[in-house]
């Protein structure tokens, strides 16, 4: 286990979570659970926690996740980032890495933002508040809607810096042998097919998602990659190859991966490939609600997951 990996997390308060604990995370972690159980909120909580090393970074992350969820609502509008931040009233998460919290205090006609990051605490008056975006390049989130061109181009830089374009093109050809090359031209990701470069937006969402994941794994060297709806647009015949890439590249780049799925095929593929590669550094975390409607986890390591799937346990379907 690498020292920078997130292994345990306690979400005291954030969105649908209160006094929630999860543990047993490994290098590659798959998160499952029924609709609206809080899977996305869970990886958002992790995403904020692992990368909050200063007030600027915690603010950036809280705004980024809210912006990602609401981006479609912001089209043709001037974005008020402070307003976005205000929508997240409370965030209090402690992990084996960081203790992080953010609260808005409104009392006696005074509004303050309160931040606690490990041993550092600070309150900032609403009128003095100034948002300074500060991102950490090796901690990335691929949200449900997929990456924008800007996100993809930025992650692709990591491949360019390491002269690994040929590797990427090889992986892309495995996915679709009709794609001859991938390049960024005029700040736009483009794929060459039938001798002609076209914007990646003209190809299927699955291809874009697949390329995003590979680029992100290189970009997140010694960091973290969070992927919402990992199987978005990916054909079931490609699932094993996708996991092979994630397991091998994450090991190579020392990147901890958290991915969400609803799909049983994805879970089975994950376990099958981990077994084939003899990679035991994996976990599966199932989020469920108990009788008191509190969110709980069922954590499975490599051995438990393989045993459970071999016996076709179907408790998930209650």
């Amino acid at each position, binding site marked *: 286990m690498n020292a920078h990996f997130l292994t345990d997390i306690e979400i005291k308060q954030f969105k649908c979570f209160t006094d929630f604990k999860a543990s047993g995370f490994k290098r590659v972690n798959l998160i499952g659970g029924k609709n609206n159980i809080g899977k996305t909120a869970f990886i958002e909580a992790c995403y904020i926690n692992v990368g909050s090393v200063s007030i600027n970074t915690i603010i950036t992350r809280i705004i980024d996740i809210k912006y990602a969820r609401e981006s479609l609502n912001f089209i043709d509008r001037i974005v008020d980032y402070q307003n976005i931040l205000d929508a997240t009233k409370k965030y209090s998460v402690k992990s084996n890495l960081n203790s992080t919290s953010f609260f808005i205090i409104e009392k006696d006609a005074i509004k303050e933002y309160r931040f606690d990051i490990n041993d550092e605490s600070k309150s900032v008056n609403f009128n003095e508040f100034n948002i300074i975006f500060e991102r950490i390049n090796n901690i990335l989130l691929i949200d449900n809607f997929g990456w924008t061109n800007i996100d993809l181009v930025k992650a692709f830089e990591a491949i360019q810096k390491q002269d690994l374009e040929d590797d990427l093109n090889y992986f892309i050809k495995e996915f679709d042998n009709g794609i001859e090359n991938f390049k960024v031209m005029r700040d736009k990701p483009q794929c060459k097919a039938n001798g002609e470069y076209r914007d990646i937006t003209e190809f299927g969402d699955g291809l874009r998602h697949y390329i995003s994941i590979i680029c992100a794994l290189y970009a997140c060297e010694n960091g973290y990659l969070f992927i919402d709806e990992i199987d978005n647009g990916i054909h079931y015949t490609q699932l094993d190859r996708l996991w092979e890439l994630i397991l091998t590249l994450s090991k190579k780049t020392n990147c901890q991966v958290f991915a969400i799925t609803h799909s049983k095929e994805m879970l089975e593929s994950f376990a099958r490939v981990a077994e084939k590669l003899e990679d035991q550094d994996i976990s599966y975390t199932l989020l469920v609600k108990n009788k008191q409607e509190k969110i709980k986890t*069922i954590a499975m390591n490599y051995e438990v997951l393989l045993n459970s799937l071999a*016996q076709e346990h179907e*408790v998930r379907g209650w």
Partner: protein
Amino acid sequence: MVKVAILHEGSSNDKTADKKLIRSLIEKIGLPESSIVYYAFGSKTEFFKITNPNYIEIKGYVEADEIDKILFIVDADHEKDDAKYKGYENTEKELKNIIDELGFNDFARFYIVCDPVTKTGYLESLILASLSAEKRNCIEHFIECSEINPKQIHKTIINNLYTIAYPDPPYNFEHAHFDELKAELTNLFTI
């Protein structure tokens, strides 16, 4: 709805009679199959290993209220084998210990499977005990003459012989020998 885990010996397929018989009996009684998840432990000694992956999974489900009740169905075996887990009384004692160690006391029960008359043997012995003496003796003589060992092969051979000899209906669930197991299974679904 009550959610139930049944822990049994043998495999998750029908290689041995364990799961097949339990499922057939559940169907016969009319219990809700969809509320049951089966955990196959393979050999008996696996029941007594607290680190068994089945236990790790079950504990997670119990803590999340995804499993309400648990029934262990374990063979008695023969005490003459002089091993820690062999024989009715040893099995009973060790099952109580592991249930206690797992913290399952409040919602777990066990049923030790054997020939109800001699209190020895396996689930297959219970099946044979439900046959007429004439039919039972035929199979028992064959087993005795063939000197089959070890236990898993023994269980499989009995199961195969029985399945070939009495395919329809496969089990005599009307026999009183099955009453106790029926009661344990029914009890799982009482609140």
